[in-house]
């Protein structure tokens, strides 16, 4: 009964979304402006209906109702409760429902939060959001109904991939979804601005707010996903340039560019058309990611089972939304203004250049992600574009971005003079040289990485030290410092890393990073729904217990790496299956890698702090 109510709620939400999309044109055609007043109510009701639908699906998983097909396929009575709940979005139908529910929720919040926007803008934004929701809900109902029943109901479920039974994985998809769906708000604002022909008061501030919300969640979601891969997959890596990872990175890069570009427009020192384009592209990359994961065109550890009808439907949805938006941009983009009253050497100039570089980097990631599809279509066989391509292209592009980041924030808005900045640029250069000198102990790449990280940190210190920052300034400082910390972590974890692998008998040892690691013991340990082979790998001051877990349903083994984290770095051990000749032991040393997680947390927190900043009324007046 609750399950049927869930389906009903989805259909109701779809009807409300259609109402929300059509009320504004209908009000104009019928000459009854009062009709448009229904829009915010429809948006709020749609959000509530979708929350109810999501709750119904979670309920079916919690009580293990195997008469629901997706519960049977993805859950099991023997699973811990946390993973029963997270199984609700661990498959195509459920994750799509979550996606749709978040889209509705953002619509409801936009309706609720007026943010000083004129009604003409607010209602248009909501109408666009209604249209987006309607498309996604049609996709849910027509091709991917999560409330489908099975007759007769099986007694037990097919379990869940044990790889997915990890707290990091239970929470990283919802966080990423909040982020990638969150960029839809900026998209709706962009379409509404093109529709109206102008941005109007409050537009830039609202876009920056919603994009920052999405960015905070995207940052946290990507970091959590990487931390999961690092801990769980047992390869000692944290980023693999997998197509689906790239699908989260592209909206993140675009949202980063948008947050910075829209600041210029807010201060009347930016190019409106560029900001609108970034907003359209940001959500486009989110949709592209959704398409790549769900259409079955790419193989990935993240991909859901392919179904041609679903693939075609989502291709149509992607083409209609993004293509429609870009047609509108081409037809009406000239109406938007450009405040090009700023000099190349100015804060606005640096921001614009940086956002262009970020979008170019996004384009490179996009090329590397879809190139295998192009190659296969052209009959060049199956090609995979891996880390070497991205390292050689994206990394060099990021160097000027980071250089601009060191001194950009301390520049004046309209026009600046490098001579004025010279003393501070000197300090930044000094920090860069110091960092570089430390890095040279290892490799030139380490020198570049540490040099840039030190320069960014120095820039933040100089900016904060000069005068007491506003709350938003403080948020930015924390986020930028977090980036420097993360950059140091990435550099240390890759350039200073050491590893060793050996097949060891119990009592044998292997040498890595100046220490001997001994395989002290190997034994079998029962877990709640698996049997673990647990080893103890010891070195002076270090005691690690990596495991291999053998699950029963479905029969699958997973590797549980043991990681010891300190401020200075990670020591990481993984074992292979024990054989009579011994057990394969791999030891990785990843200096500074924990800084990456700390830095990502600082970036999210800094963004969150900037969100809470209120503008003083006088300043608000000045900027509008």
């Amino acid at each position, binding site marked *: 009964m609750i399950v049927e109510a869930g389906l009903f709620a989805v259909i109701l939400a779809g009807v409300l979304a259609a109402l929300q999309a059509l009320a504004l044109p209908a009000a104009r055609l019928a000459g009854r402006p009062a009709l448009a007043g229904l829009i915010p109510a429809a948006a709020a009701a749609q959000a509530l209906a979708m929350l109810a639908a999501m709750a119904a699906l979670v309920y079916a998983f919690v009580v293990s109702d195997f008469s629901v097909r997706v519960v049977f396929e993805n859950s099991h009575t023997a699973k811990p409760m946390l993973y029963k709940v997270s199984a609700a979005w661990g498959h195509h139908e459920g994750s799509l429902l979550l996606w749709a529910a978040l889209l509705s929720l953002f619509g409801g919040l936009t309706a609720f939060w007026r943010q000083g926007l004129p009604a003409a803008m607010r209602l248009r934004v909501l109408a666009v959001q209604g249209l987006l929701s309607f498309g996604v809900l049609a996709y849910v109902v027509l091709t991917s109904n999560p409330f489908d029943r099975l007759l007769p109901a099986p007694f037990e479920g097919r379990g869940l991939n044990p790889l997915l039974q990890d707290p990091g994985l239970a929470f990283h998809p919802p966080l990423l979804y909040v982020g990638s769906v969150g960029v839809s708000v900026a998209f709706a604002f962009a379409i509404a601005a093109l529709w109206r022909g102008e941005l109007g008061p409050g537009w830039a501030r609202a876009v920056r707010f919603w994009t920052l919300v999405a960015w905070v969640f995207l940052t946290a979601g990507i970091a959590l996903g990487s931390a999961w891969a690092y801990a769980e997959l047992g390869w000692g890596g944290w980023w693999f340039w997998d197509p689906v990872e790239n699908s989260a990175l592209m909206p993140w890069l675009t949202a980063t560019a948008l947050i910075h570009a829209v600041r210029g427009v807010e201060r009347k020192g930016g190019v409106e058309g560029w900001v609108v384009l970034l907003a359209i592209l940001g959500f486009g990359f989110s949709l592209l990611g959704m398409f790549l994961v769900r259409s079955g065109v790419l193989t990935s550890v993240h991909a859901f089972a392919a179904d041609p009808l679903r693939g075609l439907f989502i291709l149509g949805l992607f*083409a209609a939304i993004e293509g429609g938006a870009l047609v509108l941009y081409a037809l009406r983009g000239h109406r938007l203004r450009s405040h090009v009253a700023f000099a190349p050497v100015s804060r606005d100039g640096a921001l614009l250049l940086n956002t262009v570089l970020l979008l170019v980097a996004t384009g490179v990631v996009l090329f590397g992600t879809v190139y295998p599809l192009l190659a296969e279509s052209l009959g060049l066989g199956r090609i995979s574009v891996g880390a070497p391509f991205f390292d050689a292209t994206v990394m060099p592009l990021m160097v000027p971005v980071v250089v601009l980041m060191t001194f950009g924030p301390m520049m004046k808005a309209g026009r600046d003079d490098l001579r004025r900045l010279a003393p501070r640029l000197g300090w930044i250069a000094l920090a860069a040289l110091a960092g570089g000198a430390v890095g040279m102990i290892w490799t030139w790449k380490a020198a570049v990485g540490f040099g840039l990280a030190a320069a960014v940190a120095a820039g933040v210190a100089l900016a904060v030290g000069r005068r007491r920052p506003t709350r938003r300034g403080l948020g930015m400082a924390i986020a930028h410092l977090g980036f420097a910390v993360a950059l140091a972590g990435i550099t240390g974890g890759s350039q200073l890393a050491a590893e060793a692998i050996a097949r060891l008998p119990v009592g044998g040892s292997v040498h890595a990073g100046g220490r001997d690691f001994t395989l002290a013991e190997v034994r079998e340990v029962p877990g709640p729904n698996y049997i673990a082979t647990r080893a103890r790998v010891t070195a002076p001051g270090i005691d690690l217990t990596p495991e291999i877990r053998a699950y029963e349903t*479905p029969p699958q083994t997973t590797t549980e790496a043991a990681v010891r984290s300190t401020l200075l770095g990670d020591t990481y051990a993984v074992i292979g299956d024990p054989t009579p000749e011994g057990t394969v032991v791999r030891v990785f040393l990843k200096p500074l890698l924990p800084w990456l997680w700390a830095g990502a947390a600082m970036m999210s927190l800094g963004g969150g702090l900037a969100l809470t900043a209120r503008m003083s009324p006088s300043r608000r007046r000045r900027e509008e």
Partner: protein
Amino acid sequence: MRRWRLWLPLAAFAALLAVVGFRVGKPEAPLPSPLVGKPLPAFSLPLLEGEGRLNSADFAGRAVLVNVFGSWCVACVEEHPVLLEAARSAEIVGIAWRDKPEDTRAWLAKRGNPYRAVGVDADSRAVLDLGVTGAPETFVVGPDGRVAFKLTGVMTPEIWRDRIRPLLESLK
């Protein structure tokens, strides 16, 4: 800004759509199993019924299906009727993977037994050599002892009718 520039993003998008759209509904060529064309890895397993062993060397000179299953495997229930149908014209050998013999016997007694013989692989000895990652999985082995085809997942009536039965007939 010149108007034509505003069309550039749309043009780039159209190109992207052409690239990704072209692949929809065209599943990637399945990664060929490294075993296909190679001799079936040798195994010797205790028989489920009676004394003696199930040896891979015993099938030499005949085309057989080797099916990996278990009473714990829900997908195997789905596949079972197809195997019962296939057993009318083909020789099927089962490998009961990580299963207690009494459970396997009860499962086969309830659903019917399509297998000429069943080997018990309680500790995944043979299954690891065969490169099996999950049940069910089916190998088509030719009279020369080489793997002609490997199916990962459920054998549907369509796969049996369109791929495996014609293949077996061509091997005989």
